[in-house]
């Protein structure tokens, strides 16, 4: 039975999630650190922007991204003219769209992790002569391990699980943009319930084990701190 099973959509999903998680981690680390430390009047504005992908319907987000990346917009035109590359209906576009879509899932746990840190501990590091960057790496990050793990795993899982934005920006091109969730949607549409069942069960199993390990780790870590 498994011989006819095509793993490509899953591999594509995990490849996408892996790349998106790395990019978002590098981008969101300074952003969430800044948001946690600043008292600037722009903070609520920035927080609203980063939280928008949670409340916007994926179709709305997908539509805007599609428009922004297409050659009709300055961004799309810029990439076409200078890099000779299109950003819609291919894997690159999928990565950009997924980064925007999963942004809050990386920023928010990190930010609340940083905010829960004892401000005096960070000040003690500054007084010890250490820069903000060194304090972030050597004091702040090691003390928010549960938040760190949560943000990485949830971003990964959320990217694997996304559907609407991916469908709008990427379409369903086999080996390029046809990720697992889109593949399942097509199977149901063509009434291929057997494969839809297999794919869905596989997704369910992975999602459950991933979340379960996060909660298990966080529970252990909290107990360890007592």
């Amino acid at each position, binding site marked *: 039975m498994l011989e006819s099973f095509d793993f490509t959509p899953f591999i594509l999903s995990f490849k996408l999630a892996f790349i998106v998680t790395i990019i978002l981690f590098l981008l969101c680390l300074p952003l969430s650190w800044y948001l946690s430390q600043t008292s600037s009047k722009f903070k609520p504005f920035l927080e609203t922007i980063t939280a928008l992908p949670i409340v916007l319907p994926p179709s709305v987000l997908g539509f805007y991204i599609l428009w922004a990346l297409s050659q009709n917009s300055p961004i799309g035109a810029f990439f076409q003219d200078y890099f000779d590359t299109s950003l819609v209906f291919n894997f690159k576009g999928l990565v950009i769209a997924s980064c925007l879509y999963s942004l809050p899932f990386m920023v928010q746990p990190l930010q609340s992790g940083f905010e829960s840190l004892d401000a005096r*501990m960070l000040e003690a590091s500054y007084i010890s*002569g250490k820069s903000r960057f060194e304090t972030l790496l050597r004091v702040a990050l090691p003390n928010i391990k549960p938040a760190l793990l949560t943000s990485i795993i949830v971003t990964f899982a959320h990217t694997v699980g996304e559907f609407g934005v991916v469908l709008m920006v990427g379409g369903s091109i086999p080996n390029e943009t046809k990720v697992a969730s889109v593949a399942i949607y097509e199977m149901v549409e063509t009434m291929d319930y057997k494969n839809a069942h297999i794919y869905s069960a596989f997704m369910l199993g992975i999602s459950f084990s991933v979340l379960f390990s996060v909660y298990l780790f966080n529970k252990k870590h909290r107990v360890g701190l007592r």
Partner: protein
Amino acid sequence: MIDIDIKKEINPNLTLELKLQIKEGEFLAITGKSGAGKTTFLRLLAGLERAKGKIRVGSDIWLDNSTCRAPQKREIGFVFQEYALFSNMSVKQNLLYVTKDIKLCQELLELSGLEHLQDRLPHTLSGGQKQRVSLCRAMMKRPKLLLLDEPLSALDAEMRQKLQQEILTLHKKFGTTTLMVSHDVSEIYKLANRVMVFQNGKIIKDGTPKSVLLKTSGSQKFSFEGEILDIQKVDVIFVAIVSIGQQLAEIVISQEEAKNLKIGSTVRVSTKAFAPIISI
């Protein structure tokens, strides 16, 4: 010599306005009711908060109209009331994080009897041990200025006494100028050679511990501040129960006094002491 002339509005009702000089090597205690601006003053010196005015340490300008030196570049050690240790690092790593001076680290750990705990994580230590680590960490930079913000107020009396001695030892050994916020009169008397009383953001008293803290006037020799807990009529006299420090005392008062005094008010109890009996 440290020259300070600063002004900062902490909130609409409280403006910190201080002008003072601190000599090198001095042990200055700062006391006063909470909300008087003591902690803010230390934080300003550390560069953790900004103010208008001037701070000059020796020939270095730490603060004036155009500059505000970052906390990283001020040669200070700071001990917080709540320890503020790096919870992901062992005792030894907490010290070595400041500077990689292994010799100094060992010396400090030895001095404060923390050697056997050097590989432990902060959450496994007692309050007194944590504050010792925090003190040692503050000394790792060989600071010119050591700032202690109520370092011992969370500890029990016995631990407090031990750490008072250690603070004094470190202050002398490293020749630092030390500023300590404290509410404990005996602690101030033991450690400091100068004490300032803050009230509403201003210095209202400044002098030696003896001249500021011994609250006697004229020929009175015993003088204590206390709170009236109760006033009782016993036969023909009145007795006030006064709480002084951690102890209760019965004081005979006249009928006139009994009328004027209220339960809950703060009073001063004083007497002459020609032949007091001291026993252990």
